[in-house]
C-alpha cells in the first residue's frame, strides 16, 4: 500500500537507519513464536515499516546523494531480511522439535496388518535342500506319488518276492492286479529321470512318500524324502562321499560323517550314511556313566542310505552300463528336520498345529 504523501518525509541519515536496523533485529530476536515473529515482521519489514518508508523516500533525495542513501538503505534492508530469515529458521526448528516430542509413540506396540504366517518346516527345509543342489548345477526332478509297481519296485531291482512289496509295508491300489502303489520312496522319480532325460544326469528328487506304518511318535504313513541321483561317465563311490560330505556340511556345519557298507537292492556297493552324533559328539561311546539317548551311545546316527547305482537298475532304464555308472542317496526330510531343529514327535509334523509351523521363524535357515 502506498504511503500517504502528506506524511512528513522520514529521516534518512545513517544514525536513523542504523537505529531502525537495530530495532528490527531486536524485535525479531524477542519473538518467541512464529506468530510473534510474524507480527515483528509486519512491524519492521512489512509495507508500513519505517525502513520501507525510508526506501520509498529515496526518490526525494537530492540526485547527488541518492546513490549513497540508496546503498545505505539497501544494506539496512538486507540486514533486516537476513535477521528475519535466520530467526524464522531458528523458530521453525524449535517448533518442529517440540512437535516431534509430542508425536512420540510406543513403537513396541504390535502392528497387526496381517496374521503371522509360515511355511511348513518340511517345505522350508526341502526348499533349502533344493538350493544346495541347484547351486551345484543339479536339477530338481519330480514325479507322481501314486506310482506303477514297476517304477517303484521292479526297475529298482526289488523283485516280485521282495519283502518290501508286502501289503504290510506298502499301500496298494485296489485291486492288486492294477500294480499301482503309493510310492514307498522317491526312487521311482530316479527311474523316470533315467528313462526321460538325456545323460549325464544330476538330479535330486524331493517329495512325499508312503509306508503302511502305524501313526505314532516315530512313524508316519506319509513322510518326505530327498533322493539324489548322478549318472555319468566315471562316477565312483568317492563322488558319492564328496557329495554327501558337502550336503552334511551345509546342513549341519562341522560334523563328521561316515559311510559304512550296507545293503539295498538298487545300489551295489550300498552304504549307510551316518552323522557324528550332534549331541554327544561320540563322547558317550564306551562311557556307561554318561549314556546318550540320541545315538544310543553309538556315537553315530543314521542319516540315510546310499550307494553306487546297481547296474541292473541302469539296464532296466536302457543305460549302457559299460559306459556309465552312477550313485544315488536318499534321506528322510523329517529326520533331517529332527536333527537340525530338534522336532521330537513325528505327529506334530502332520497334525496341523499352527504353533509347529510358526515356530521356525524365517523357515529353514
Amino acid at each position, binding site marked *: 500500500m502506498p504511503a500517504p504523501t502528506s506524511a512528513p518525509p522520514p529521516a534518512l541519515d545513517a544514525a536513523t537507519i542504523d537505529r531502525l536496523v537495530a530495532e528490527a533485529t531486536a524485535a525479531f530476536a524477542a519473538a518467541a513464536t512464529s506468530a510473534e515473529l510474524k507480527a515483528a515482521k509486519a512491524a519492521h519489514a512489512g509495507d508500513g515499516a519505517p525502513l520501507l518508508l525510508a526506501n520509498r523516500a529515496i526518490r526525494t533525495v537530492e540526485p547527488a546523494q541518492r546513490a549513497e542513501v540508496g546503498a545505505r538503505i539497501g544494506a539496512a534492508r538486507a540486514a533486516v531480511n537476513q535477521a528475519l530469515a535466520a530467526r524464522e529458521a531458528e523458530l521453525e526448528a524449535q517448533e518442529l522439535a517440540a512437535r516431534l516430542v509430542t508425536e512420540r509413540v510406543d513403537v513396541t*506396540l*504390535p502392528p*497387526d496388518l*496381517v*496374521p503371522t*504366517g509360515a*511355511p*511348513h518346516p518340511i*517345505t522350508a527345509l526341502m*526348499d533349502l535342500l*533344493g538350493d544346495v543342489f*541347484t547351486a*551345484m*548345477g*543339479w*536339477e*530338481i526332478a*519330480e514325479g*507322481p506319488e*501314486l506310482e*506303477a509297481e*514297476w517304477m517303484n519296485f*521292479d*526297475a529298482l531291482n526289488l523283485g516280485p*518276492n521282495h519283502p518290501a512289496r508286502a501289503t504290510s509295508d506298502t*499301500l*496298494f*491300489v*485296489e485291486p492288486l492286479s492294477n*500294480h*499301482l502303489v503309493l510310492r514307498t520312496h522317491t526312487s521311482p522319480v530316479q527311474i523316470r529321470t533315467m*528313462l526321460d532325460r538325456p545323460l*549325464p544326469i544330476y538330479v535330486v528328487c524331493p517329495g512325499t512318500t508312503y509306508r*503302511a506304518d*502305524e501313526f505314532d511318535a516315530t512313524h508316519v504313513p506319509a513322510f518326505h524324502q530327498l533322493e539324489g541321483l548322478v549318472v*555319468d561317465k566315471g562316477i*565312483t*563311490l*568317492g*563322488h558319492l*562321499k564328496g*557329495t554327501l560330505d558337502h550336503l552334511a556340511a551345509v546342513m549341519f556345519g562341522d560334523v563328521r560323517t*561316515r559311510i*559304512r*557298507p*550296507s*545293503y539295498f537292492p538298487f545300489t*551295489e*556297493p550300498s552304504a549307510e550314511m551316518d552323522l557324528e552324533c550332534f549331541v554327544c559328539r561320540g563322547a558317550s561311546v564306551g562311557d556307561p556313566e554318561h549314556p546318550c539317548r540320541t545315538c*544310543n551311545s*553309538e556315537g553315530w546316527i543314521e542319516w540315510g542310505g546310499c550307494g553306487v547305482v546297481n*547296474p541292473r537298475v541302469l*539296464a*532296466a532304464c536302457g543305460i549302457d552300463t559299460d559306459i556309465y555308472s552312477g550313485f544315488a542317496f536318499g534321506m528322510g526330510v523329517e529326520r533331517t528336520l529332527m536333527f537340525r531343529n530338534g522336532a521330537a514327535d513325528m505327529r506334530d509334523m502332520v*497334525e496341523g*498345529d*499352527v504353533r509347529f*509351523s*510358526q515356530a521356525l521363524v524365517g*523357515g529353514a535357515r
Partner: protein
Amino acid sequence: MRAPISWLREFAHLDASVDATAIYEALIRAGLEVETVDHVGPDVTGPVVVGRVLSIQDEPQKNGKVIRWCRVDCGPEANAAATEPAGPGEPGSRGIICGAHNFAVGDLVVVGLPGAVLAGGFELTSRKTYGHISDGMICAEDELGLGDDHTGIIVLPPTHADGTPLVPGEPALPLIATSDDVLDIAVTPDLGYCLSIRGIAREAAQAFGAPFTDPAARPTPGEKHDGFPVTLDTPNCPLFVAVTVEGLDPTRPSPAWLQQRVKMAGMRSLGLAVDVTNYVMMELGQPIHGYDGDRLNGGIVVRQATAGETLTTLDGQLRQLDPEDIVITDGSGVIGLAGVMGGQTTELEADTTRVVIEAAAFDPVAIARTAKRHKLPSEASKRFERGVDPAAAYSAAHRVADLLVELGGARKVAAETVAGSVPPMPEQTIPADLPSRILGHAVPAEQVVAILRASGVAVREDPGGLLHLVPPTWRPDLKDPYDYVEEVGCKIGFDVIAPVVPLAPAGRGRTPAQQARRNLTWSLPAAGFTEVISFPFSSADEVDRLGVPEGDERRALVRLANPLADTLPELRTTLLPGLFGAIARNRSRSQDDLALYEQGLVFFGPAGQAPIPSVEHRPSDAELAAIAAALPRQPRHLACVVTGNWRPAGWSGPALPADWTHAVAFADLAARTVGVTLSKRAADHAPWHPGRCAELSVGDQVIGYAGELHPAVLAAYGLPARVVAAELDLDRLIAAAPGPGQLPVLSAFPVAKEDVALIVDEAVAQADVAAALREGAGPLLESLALFDVYRGDQAGPGKKSLAFALRFRADRTLTDAEANAARDAAVQVAADRFGAIQRVA
C-alpha cells in the same frame, strides 16, 4: 543275530589285545550292522559264595506265607563272622531267611553275604526280619542279574566240571555264569552267512588278518543212502543229509555252558536235544530238524505239497498247505513244512532216544514265500530265505550228533544218508580294475585277488586282466560284477575312499513351475497364511459330507487295497477335509483364529492296470505309455481355510472377522504370485455357500473356487460358522501363467481423473460392470478401481450404486474434452449392457 565274543574267538583266532569294541568297529567297517555290544554276566559285586544248607525250619506267617529259617554253612571265614554264630558244638553256619522252597537240606546254594551288591544296586546287610537276624541271602537268578527267573533258588551241582567237589565258602559266581560281550547284529538280506557264529567269526578274522578255523570243514561226501531212507522229489531241495543217533538219555540236562550260550544268543533253553540243534544252527547257520526216529513212519520223501493237504505244526496250528510249499513227508503223510517248522507227530518228546537229524538245503525263494504265506517267520526260515551254505549241512548234522553223543550219552549210527549234492556256484568274470574304477580308490589287481581269496572266492586270473571268479558256497550274494566290487570295498573299508565332489554340467535351476511353487512357499506366509501338511487318506463318506453331487469328478475316488484305517480307504480328491481336520485340532488347543493352507496332490480315478515289463532292458514306448495310462490323474492342489478373526480385537481397533474376501484374496495372491490374474463369477459349487462362492478362472479355464463354506458342510464337520475356503488346481494355475511378461513404457504426462457412479440391478456383478467400463473407456484408460458400493434411497429398491475411479493417461497431456469423452464412452457400454444409470451428484 546275537553273537557272544567268546564263541567268535573259538574260530577267529584274534589277538587277546583285540577287545569287544575293536571287533564291533571292525565289523561295522566291513558292512555288518552291529547295533549294540551288550555285556552279559552277573551284575554283582562283593562276597557271593557257595553255601551248604544245614537245616531248614518252616515258619508259617500270618499272611499265609511260609518262610524258611535256614542255617547255611558259608565257609569257616563267613561262618565265624556271623552276627549270630552257630552254637558251641554245632557246625559253623549263618542264619538266613528265605522265601523259596525249591531246595533241601544238604543242597549247595549261592549265598550273598553282607556287603555284596546284587542286581539293581541292592546292597545286602544283616537285617532283622520275621523275628530272626537274616545274615545273607540265598540267591535266585534274577537277583544276580543272570536272567528274569525268580521262580526259585539256584541249586548248584555237587561237583565242578572236573569232578572235584564244591566247597562252602568258595566264590560262587564263576560256577554259575561267565562274563561275556555279545554283539547284536542286524544282518542285511545279502549277508545270510552272518546269521551264524561261523560267518561272523570269518569276517572278524578277515578284518584283523587273523587265522580262522572253519567249524564246518567236513567235506560233503557223494550221494549215499546207507542211513535213514530219504527221497528228494522236488528241485527245491537239492541236498538232504540224515544222520541218526540212538540211545540218547532223555533225562540228561543241558549243561550250564550250553544253556548260557543258547540264552546269550537270544533263545530259550528247552532241553538238551533242542538246545543242541539250536546251538549248531547258531554256530554254523544251518537250520537243523530233529525227528523222533521211533515215530517216523517209513522213509522220508521231500516234495511239493498238493492242494488240500494239511499239517499241524509244532505250534499247534493246523495249516492248509499250498502246492508252492515244500513238505517233508513219511508214510503217514506230511510231517513238516520244510525249512520253516516241523509237525507235531514226529517232534522230539521227553522220552525220545533215537533222533534222526535233518540238515538240508532248500530254495530261498520257496521258503520265503512259505514263511510269508503261513505267517511263520522262524529262526530256520529267516536263514533259508537269505541263503544257507549247503556245504555246511553235512558238518552240521555231524556236529549235532557228536554233541548228543558227548552230552546225552547217545551213540552215532555209522550208516548215514546224503541225498542230493551241493549245487555248483555260478562263475562271474570282471576286469581286475573294476573295483578301482567304481570305488574311486586304487586297489591293485593283486590286492583284489588277495581280498577275494580271503573271502573264499576261487579266483582265476587271465593274462588279459580279467578275473574269473567262483564264490564260496556260503556267499550266494556274490553274483554280479558289482557284488565283487562291494566285497572289495567292504574289505578295504569305505573310509579310505577320498571324497570328491563331482562336477555337474551347468544346470538350469528350478523349472518355471518349481520356481512358481517356491515363490508361493514364501508369498502366502508373508500374507498371513500358515502351511500345514495332512495325510491324503479319504473316503466316500467324506465326499458325501462335502455335499459333492453325483457325477462330480471328486467322486472318482481311488481305493486302496490295504488302507491303514477302514474308515479312510480312499485317496483324497480335495484338500479341504484335511484342512478341516487341522482347524478342529487347533481349535481343540484353543487356537481359534486360523488362516491355514496346504498344497499337495489329489487323486482322481479311475486307476488302470499297469504292466510289469521286463527289467532286462528299457521298457518299450508302448509299455511306458501303458504305465502312464494306468496312473490316475494326480494334480497338485492349493487350498486355504480361514476361520475366527482375520485380525483379533486389539489395541489398534476392533476385531476383523474372517469372511469370504479372505478366501478370494488368498486365491488372488496365489495367482498373482505365479503371474496370473483370475477372473471370477458367482457359482454354486459344493462345499461352498451357493450365494458366496466365486468360480475362479483364467481365460475360459476354471482353476478353482473360493468363498464361504456351506452351513450344512460346516455343521457336518462340526466347524464354527462362516469358515471360508479356497481350493485351486495349482498345476493348471501355474500352466496358465503367460511367458516372462512385458514391461511398459511409462508416460510422464499428467493423469486425468474421472469418477463415475453407476446404478445397476443388485444382481449385476461388479466385475461385469468394471469390464464394460474398461471396454468402453478404450486405450486411454490407465486404471479403474471400485471405490464405493451404495445401497439406499438414492439408488432405489433392488438397485445398488457402484462408484469407480477412472484414470486416463496418454503420451501427451489429455484435454478435459478427451477425458470426458472416454468416460462417457465407458459409461455408455455399461448402460447398454446392464442398463446402468450414471448417478449425478
